[in-house]
């Protein structure tokens, strides 16, 4: 699309677009969460800042920026201060490889699925660093919970994604969407379920939010964080949700392809992607409203005894399908 531009300018423009999306989409999702939770719980949500409370997240951001940036005396200073960046940046990198329409992808690398999955798993290290570096017992418990949880859910997540890649015969996200057709919704349904459950666990959202359980370990790794560093962790959480919703859309819901028009390029495709991703994200939010959290041993059991076998069965089904149809 931008092939005639000089290389540096093109890269700069794309980077700016990705950064803009990275900063606005999580905020939009946060705003959606405020309002959706409010209405599901029979209340309004924040209403004071701006029309219908639309400025609430900006107000929150200003508040976070004003707060003192405290590093506890017992903390491992460089580790503690670096952790939010380690948690946040991987999602920015991953977002740049996600296609939102046939030609709308910032970096179209050949094995983009592999890149996205590899990069997102770096985020765990940020949480572990925060848990270990805070010098706080609650943070330590939370950090270790997070480590254990993310390690066990990485496997079903990757296997579910591998099933789709196998079906499409490519590791490129753009290629997967081009190969996708509607009956994959049924064929790949178990993988979709596994991927969705595993991504909720990766994001540490309810019901798999034991690592940050506020009523048990007081937000775990985030206990000691204040101000902007805390805001970065929050941003990482919501950016993660955006990324996982987009990835789910691309892998399982046919990305930018609408039910009628298969062209997929241009703005309509982007709208389809955003619409589908929003629906997935609303699912994440709904879980938080409806469910309590599971205990770590329960979620480990769920990962190893339910999700992993299911993902393996799906791989076998996909393999058989590819052989028969291929």
């Amino acid at each position, binding site marked *: 699309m931008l092939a005639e531009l000089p290389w540096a300018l093109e890269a700069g423009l794309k980077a700016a677009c990705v950064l803009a999306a990275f900063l606005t989409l999580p905020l939009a999702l946060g705003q959606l969460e405020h309002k959706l939770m409010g209405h599901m719980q029979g209340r309004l949500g924040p209403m004071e800042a701006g029309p219908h409370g639309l400025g609430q997240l900006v107000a929150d951001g200003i508040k976070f920026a004003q707060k003192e940036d405290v590093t506890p005396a017992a903390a491992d200073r460089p580790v503690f201060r670096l952790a939010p960046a380690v948690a946040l940046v991987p999602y920015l990198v991953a977002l740049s490889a996600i296609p939102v329409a046939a030609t709308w992808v910032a970096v179209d690398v050949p094995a983009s699925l592999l890149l996205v999955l590899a990069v997102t798993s770096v985020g765990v290290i940020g949480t572990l660093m925060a848990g270990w570096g805070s010098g706080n017992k609650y943070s330590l418990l939370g950090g270790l*919970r997070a480590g254990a949880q993310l390690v066990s859910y990485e496997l079903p997540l990757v296997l579910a994604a591998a099933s789709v890649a196998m079906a499409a015969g490519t590791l490129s996200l753009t290629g997967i969407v081009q190969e996708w057709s509607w009956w994959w919704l049924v064929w790949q349904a178990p993988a979709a379920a596994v991927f969705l459950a595993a991504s909720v666990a990766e994001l540490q959202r309810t019901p798999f939010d034991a690592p940050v359980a506020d009523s048990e370990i*007081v937000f775990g790794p985030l206990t000691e964080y204040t101000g902007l560093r805390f805001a970065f962790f929050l941003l990482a959480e919501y950016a993660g949700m955006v990324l996982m919703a987009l990835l789910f859309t691309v892998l399982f819901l046919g990305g930018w392809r609408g039910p009628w028009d298969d062209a997929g390029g241009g703005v309509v495709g982007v709208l389809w992607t955003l619409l589908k991703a929003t629906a997935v994200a609303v699912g994440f939010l709904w879980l938080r409203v409806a469910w309590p959290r599971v205990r770590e041993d329960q979620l480990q059991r769920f990962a190893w005894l339910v999700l992993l076998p299911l993902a393996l069965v799906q791989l076998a089904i996909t393999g058989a399908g590819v052989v028969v149809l291929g």
Partner: protein
Amino acid sequence: MSSRDVDVTLGAAGVGGLSTTEMVLNIGPQHPATHGVLRLRITADGERITAAEPVIGYMHRGAEKLFEVRDYRQIMVLANRHDWLSAFNNEVGVALTVEHLLEMEVPERATWARTLLCELGRVLNHLMFLGSYPHELGAITPMFYSFREREEIQAVMEEYSGGRMHFMATRVGGLLHDLPEGWLDRVDAAVSTVRSRLPDLTGLVLGNEILQGRTRGIGVLDLDTVLAYGVSGPIARASGLDVDLRRDEPYLAYGELFGEDGPGRVVTREAGDCYARLDVLVEQIQVSLDLVEACTARLRDLGPGPISSRLPKKLKVPAGEHYCASENPLGLNGYYLVSRGDTVPHRLKLRSASFNNVQVLREMLPGTVVADMVAILGSMFFVVGDIDK
């Protein structure tokens, strides 16, 4: 150290020959799960708790000492503050103690109105825990559902007493004033509204598989421990202790309500786990709503009449002593009054439900993990003010 500490071989000890150390973790006095300022000093091996000790007293306000320098009307103010979620039931407890010692007759209308308000208070209390307990397990929505129902009941309580938390509607010899015009109808309307919407809340809480997974078989409290620690109320009944003072030592109008054809029944469960305790609360709400309806029907039949006895200008209670216990929402609540014929009590000892109920945590917590600790702590349905007095 008890022998239990030796039994615990879970946790990380010995894994791969690594040496591990236990860590002492202070849960509270400022912690989201302790509803105030209860402090638990737990020793944990990884996530596994090896010892737990409730440290109490952060909210000690000297209620019993203050009782001794207040006259009998002023005592009510203190009484409805030690367990702020059972405020009306506490007031009635003090009033009954004083009335027994005075050998004072209370008008029948007042007795039935007190019973009605007590049961409304019980519903308020149980709804509170039905909202806050799932919150500790990570479910944020039941709180809003339960507060929607609480608001219905609060409205009628507020219309009668003017208060939303500390009702101060009880007087020695009766109640503050007569029931407002049409109030009984509004109580009935509130009760039927709450009854019709309660399945939303209970479905969200009891019907949830994750909540069941978090509470079934967790924090099992056996009957022997219940008896040894003097645990009472819904917690004890969830372990199969079939004791309810409303039936066993009837006061107010409970004799009739829990009689042969009365709507009252004692809710018990056998499992003794967190789920059973929650289940008891839910069913007790239903029973209390039935009792409220029986009370409004009876009050309509009674027709107009006095709602309070006349008191002398200076109320002096004859020398003597008397203990009166009542079935508060959270358990047995007793007042032991020693009078020397003065306008103030010589001594008024308070037996509060939460104090005994929380002691048993020392037995229940060792061997559990931190996540279960929160589930168990929340299921003990305590009010810190009632522990620390």
